[in-house]
């Protein structure tokens, strides 16, 4: 049954795009809207998983973890309460967002920059012809990305422009084309029921 639905939904959307058949357009509009709402329902999954994991930590008093689990669950509840009862456009919600989530996500993701710097020091080396090319291309782009150098040493801009326009664009285009073939193959595999991982665990009968 679910597999039939997958195929049906996919075919409807595809047919609507390639063929003009009266009637499909309205069905597909609804289907897409429903897709948005269902995706919104699924946004709660993350929180449910966290509840599962962290209530277990708390009830088992996992050493070094359970106090943090309390913090985490408290923050879920607090954020949800403020957002739902006072609306996500309220000043209170944006206060909460700016003090916590915004500051934290920006910082946590930026911090990998330090690891990249030490990676540059240790690993960006001309160990063989391949890594030499990687190193030289990387070095040219690093230097060009310094705005003052780009002004002072115009040859860097020319070289970076060439690396970007010729090897990078063409190699990326080849990778993209390969990836699109993979996506379309995976699509048909899913439509004919050869790829069922998205369905989750198996029922007794299927086992």
């Amino acid at each position, binding site marked *: 049954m679910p597999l039939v639905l997958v195929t049906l939904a996919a075919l409807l959307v595809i047919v609507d795009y390639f063929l003009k058949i009266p009637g499909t357009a309205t069905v597909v509009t609804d289907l897409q809207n429903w897709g948005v709402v269902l995706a919104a329902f699924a946004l709660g999954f993350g929180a449910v998983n966290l509840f599962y994991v962290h209530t277990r930590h708390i009830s088992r008093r996992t050493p070094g973890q359970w106090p943090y689990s309390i913090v985490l669950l408290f923050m879920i509840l607090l954020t949800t309460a403020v957002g739902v009862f006072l609306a996500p456009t309220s000043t209170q919600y944006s206060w909460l967002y700016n003090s916590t989530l915004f500051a934290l996500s920006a910082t946590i993701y930026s911090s990998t920059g330090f690891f990249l710097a030490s990676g540059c020091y240790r690993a960006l080396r001309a160990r063989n012809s391949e890594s030499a090319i990687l190193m030289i291309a990387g070095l040219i782009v690093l230097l060009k990305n310094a705005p003052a150098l780009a002004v002072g040493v115009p040859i860097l801009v020319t070289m970076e422009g060439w690396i970007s326009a010729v090897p990078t664009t063409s190699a990326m285009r080849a990778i993209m*084309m390969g990836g699109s073939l993979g996506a379309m193959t995976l699509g048909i595999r899913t439509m004919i029921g050869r790829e069922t991982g998205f369905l989750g665990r198996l029922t007794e009968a299927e086992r």
Partner: protein
Amino acid sequence: MLVTGRIFALVTLIAIWVFALGSVSLAKKKLPSFRKLAGLDALPEMVGRAAETNKSVHFTTGGGGSLTDPVLPQLVAAMAVLGHVSELCAKYGVRVVYTVFLSEMIPIATEVMRAGYLRAGKEDAFNAESQVRYMSGDQFAYASAVQGYAERERPAANIMIGPFYAESQLFGETFYRVGSISLAGTARGVQVPFFAVMCDYLLIGEEIYAAGAYLSKDITQVGCIRGQDIGKVYALILTILGFLLTAAGSSFIIDLLKV
């Protein structure tokens, strides 16, 4: 009825489907063989070095994704490699440790590793408790736990295959620093360059699917890889023909693509 400007696209889409499905049914009769994958060829040497230095081999599938994500095929490919690595390690008497991010992977990985040890005839040597280690389900908590593991045990070899996110940059640096030889592969395009810089052996993008299909010998997977290969030949022919005709002053292929 057909929308003009989209006809050639429809034909191509159907052709790609036919390539895939046809290749899968042909693969049932005879499994196609594979070209050499440079990254995979390095595995025996990596495990061998672990045996010499009496150190372990570390395996990870990254700190992100889920079994319902589109990244699932990457995890499937990673499991095929894990099975192969387990078999090699069992043969050489080396301990392989899989640090787990997704708890759903624990039973799957345990089975895969046990099967690998069984193929090497050393099922007794496998200890699921200590070799399949659940670290954490949070990205950075997982990353920090794996970094801690790397500093303590200093594995001789480190194999990273799967859907990697920002942790690729942390892992690449850490394992390089502790002196592990690394083999890495991911089909998440933006992370490949970080692996390319910081790892010794690389499976680039789609190579991980090929590696997975090659090692698992699963008919659907191998057939689909073959189907995509035919699609690539199709692209090569169209590109070359189009380029030559453009040089000759004809826009036949370009116009055909626009139909």
